[in-house]
């Protein structure tokens, strides 16, 4: 008898988690702590949890001309990811998309994500507000979008768990008073709120208590500058957790570093001291039952005939610069997709799974952002403190949601860097460098005059970032196109994206609000929306023109619902069609409200971990055997 080639043993785990980002790291943490054997497969590399890797990313970011969210992170052809620089606006409107995403419009999907150990939350700003209770049933209350099968109260205890895990700094009383968020009596965040920036106090002095109408016939709203909760180390709250306090978690890879935010204003793309929460901090506390394998691109979820999934197939590569890779499989009782809203949808579509409702990949949402920017009448200290420390919360809900998308107003602490590439854009302008390389250089300033002018100009910059709720629409979707594959042969995502009139009306209202805010502040408004290279999101609406940006908040692509007929996952984020397949993350959200979604995603994920634990336990119950009748 001759032996055939030995079949490599397929490793078996209790759980396979796809993606070592925020959601995946939390799942591995919770299930690993309960003794389940967890395999985490990460498509990207794993350099950032070492100190030299962090310093390398920091150097790359400092050297980058455009400090975009993915600037610090090395390109990886084996696990490609999008970049906001992939989009270029055309001279007369419209846009061109290069890079990982194929886009067929009509408007560009302007957000990126990151495929690396740690995931997109490596470059998030770190804002951690809760959703408003009204955000969970927008269809029922306001007639647009989709409703959650859960309410705020169902999620509330998990919000607290997420705030603990992320180490959120905030002021619960202020959130309760200013926004109407319900907290249990006496609740305090793990850390005291991040101090306001000087800019916040300048704006609060001129806006707090002012009553304003967004349109002549609209009801009055009272303005109030409210501190934003952050997943960022501030001062630990000694009264937290019944007086046990909270220990800030500092940097990963080096001791006693990053235990306080020091105000670099570089949260996006990378916190230099790692005072900002990233999933690497959760990974550092994983139990020994968790195995992380990076350089492992999951290409398919494997199924048995009965609807249950068996495990995953993945492509293991060694060198990101080489096309060489090998195909492997891993089996598990439970498979959890936690690879990002777009990647989860891509994987379900490639596997032909979970789509009895026809909703996989649909309902793609983001928080479209409108920027307005200007100069105050005196220096207000931009580029100090985190990217945004306060906002105006009074447009987040209310009857006006029937007619237009609600929005949250972030006060931007980083000058005009997002709208105009400041301060480097200001330097080149003052040096006489135009954006057009075919033109000769104009006359520029030098020396002391340049420094004075720059200080006078940059020091007075401020911006507002209006983030709109985008409603779930089935036409906004992710599909895959086998004619366009990445280097490992995996089809790339195709995005179809537009803004509803509901959102566009919100944008127009916000611009009207912004005009009033500038008047109240006595500020010089420099806001202008024109088509061109840096404005791929330019569009006309009514008799106005606007330009929107992406917030990096992809959601909705494996939408959660109360019925298997019209949603992909159940309220536990379990695929209706496959009892042991979960798809977790913002992709499950039926609506995104106006709050940055990471905290809600973390809360939802922690809630699902309880269900996963029960599912795994039930699998291990002994079967009850009944003897046939009449036998002794």
């Amino acid at each position, binding site marked *: 008898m001759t032996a055939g080639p030995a079949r490599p043993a397929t490793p078996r785990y209790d759980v396979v988690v796809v993606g070592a980002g925020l959601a995946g790291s939390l799942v591995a943490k919770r299930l690993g702590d309960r003794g389940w054997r967890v395999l985490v497969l990460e498509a990207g590399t794993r350099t950032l949890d070492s100190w030299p890797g962090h310093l390398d990313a920091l150097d790359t970011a400092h050297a980058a001309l455009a400090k975009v969210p993915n600037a610090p992170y090395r390109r990886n052809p084996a696990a490609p990811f999008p970049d906001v620089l992939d989009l270029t606006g055309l001279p007369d409107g419209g846009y061109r998309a290069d890079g990982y995403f194929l886009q067929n419009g009509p408007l560009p999907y302007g957000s990126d994500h990151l495929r690396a150990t740690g995931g997109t939350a490596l470059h998030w700003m770190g804002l951690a507000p809760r959703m408003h209770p009204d955000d969970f049933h927008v269809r029922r209350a306001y007639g647009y979008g989709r409703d959650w099968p859960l309410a705020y109260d169902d999620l509330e205890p998990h919000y607290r768990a997420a705030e603990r895990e992320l180490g959120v700094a905030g002021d619960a009383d202020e959130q309760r008073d200013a926004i109407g968020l319900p907290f249990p009596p006496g609740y305090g965040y793990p850390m005291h709120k991040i101090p306001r920036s000087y800019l916040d106090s300048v704006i609060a002095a001129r806006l707090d208590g002012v009553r304003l109408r967004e349109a002549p016939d609209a009801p009055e709203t009272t303005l109030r500058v409210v501190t934003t909760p952050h997943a960022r180390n501030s001062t630990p709250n000694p009264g937290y957790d019944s007086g046990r306090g909270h220990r800030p978690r500092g940097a990963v890879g080096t*001791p006693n570093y*990053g235990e306080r935010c020091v105000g670099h204003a570089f949260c996006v793309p990378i916190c230099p001291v790692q005072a900002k929460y990233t999933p690497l901090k959760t990974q550092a506390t994983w139990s020994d039952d968790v195995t992380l394998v990076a350089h492992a691109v999951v290409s398919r979820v494997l199924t048995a005939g009965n609807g249950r999934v068996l495990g995953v197939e993945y492509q293991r590569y060694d060198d990101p610069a080489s096309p060489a890779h090998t195909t492997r499989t891993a089996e598990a009782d439970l498979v959890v997709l936690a690879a990002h809203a777009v990647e989860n949808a891509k994987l379900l579509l490639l596997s032909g799974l979970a789509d009895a409702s026809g909703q996989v990949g649909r309902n793609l949402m983001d928080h479209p952002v409108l920027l307005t920017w200007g100069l105050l009448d005196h220096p207000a200290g931009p580029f100090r403190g985190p990217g945004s420390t306060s906002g105006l919360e009074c447009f987040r809900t209310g009857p006006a949601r029937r007619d237009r998308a609600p929005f949250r107003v972030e006060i931007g602490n980083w000058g005009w860097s997002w709208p105009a590439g400041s301060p480097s854009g200001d330097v080149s302008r003052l040096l006489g460098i135009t954006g057009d390389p075919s033109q000769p250089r104009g006359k520029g300033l030098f020396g002391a005059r340049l420094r004075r002018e720059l200080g006078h100009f940059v020091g007075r910059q401020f911006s507002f970032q209006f983030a709109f709720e985008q409603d779930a629409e089935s036409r906004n979707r992710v599909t895959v196109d086998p004619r366009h594959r990445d280097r490992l042969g995996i089809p790339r995502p195709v995005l179809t994206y537009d803004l509803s009139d509901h959102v566009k009306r919100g944008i127009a209202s916000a611009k009207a609000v912004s005009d009033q805010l500038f008047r109240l502040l006595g500020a010089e408004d420099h806001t202008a929306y024109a088509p061109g290279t840096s404005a791929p999101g330019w569009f006309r609406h009514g008799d106005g023109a606007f330009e929107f940006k992406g917030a990096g908040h992809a959601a909705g692509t494996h939408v959660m619902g109360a019925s298997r007929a019209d949603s992909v996952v159940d309220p536990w984020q379990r695929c209706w069609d496959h009892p042991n397949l979960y798809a977790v993350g913002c992709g499950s959200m039926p609506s995104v409200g106006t709050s940055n979604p990471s905290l809600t995603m973390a809360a939802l994920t922690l809630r699902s971990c309880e269900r996963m634990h029960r599912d795994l336990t039930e699998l291990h119950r002994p079967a009850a055997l009944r003897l046939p009748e009449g036998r002794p």
Partner: protein
Amino acid sequence: MTEPAVLAEPPFRVPRDRADLQLFLQAALTLEHLTIPPYLTAMYSLRPGRNRPASHIIRSVVLEEMLHMTLVANLLSAVGGEALVADSRFVSSYPAVLPFSKEKVPVALRHFGPEALETFLYIERPAYVAEPPGHPSVGEDDGWTSVGQFYATLRAGVLRLSAELGERELFCGDPARQVGPADFYDSGGEVFAVTDLASALKALRVVTEQGEGADGTVFDSDEELFGETRQPAHYFRFDEIRRERAYGPYDTPAGGPSGPDIAVAWQDAYPLDPGAKVAHYPPGSAVRRAADRFNEVYARLLCVLQAAFTGTPAVLRAAVPTMLELRALSERLHRNPHPDPARRAAGLHASPTYEVTERHFERARAELALRE
């Protein structure tokens, strides 16, 4: 070289009464501060972006020295005293003789290099700790032999007075004067309020064990006291640079480091004049103005600390941007070859001098008053 400055040492005895204890604590504050300018000079002399491991190590030590200053100030406030830091007498001129030690070791403002490191290792050296004065093994007129002995004596004084006066009587200071974790600190250990004997002894433990190591090991006690990652103590962290090798978890003081290599580029620092004085820079020159400005900003830093240690702890946050200003001014100075031809020929560069005079304090106070 000029004759090294000698710091006043308290009398060789266990503190007898409250006034004595306050005198000792003020001396401790001066001692902790004495190390900061030399450490900052070495750290900022590294060419930006080079020698990151060494820079990181020195930074972690200098931050902990700032923690020690703060804890000593807390202890001084707790026993009813008042820290004095915003005063030209508080800032020693350099080179200075390291106090409380047998050998007269000069401490100078040197650039990063073997000489600077030798001095740092001497400062942080875990000496054989002599018993406090009055112990049968110690002679009447032996005098101080080590920093460790001085702190052991301080500790004995705190214990003795707490027993004599009663704990509540000894710690009679206003708790509102205590600098706490809310007032900013960002490295190994933690700022905490000193309000009783237990917290006073803990403060003294942090000050000594972060420097010399705990229980005869190479490691400090951050893990035990604060639930933080333990690190080699200051002496052993400097030793890692000197030997270009990290300490591993099982290493001992006797055996030396056996961990991974640390790359040190000894030549990647601006060579500085250890006897640098403002007077060596031509009046009216840009270098002179920058050196003068540095001393003024350093005076402002001490004014901020003075306020933080004596009633308004929250202003400690203002020390952070002031430190960043000092870094920027240091780097500006270092980029200039020394204006003096002979020193320039020796390859030296301009550097901050830490000559903080009453005039600088006056200007710093005026500047702070303007910002109010």
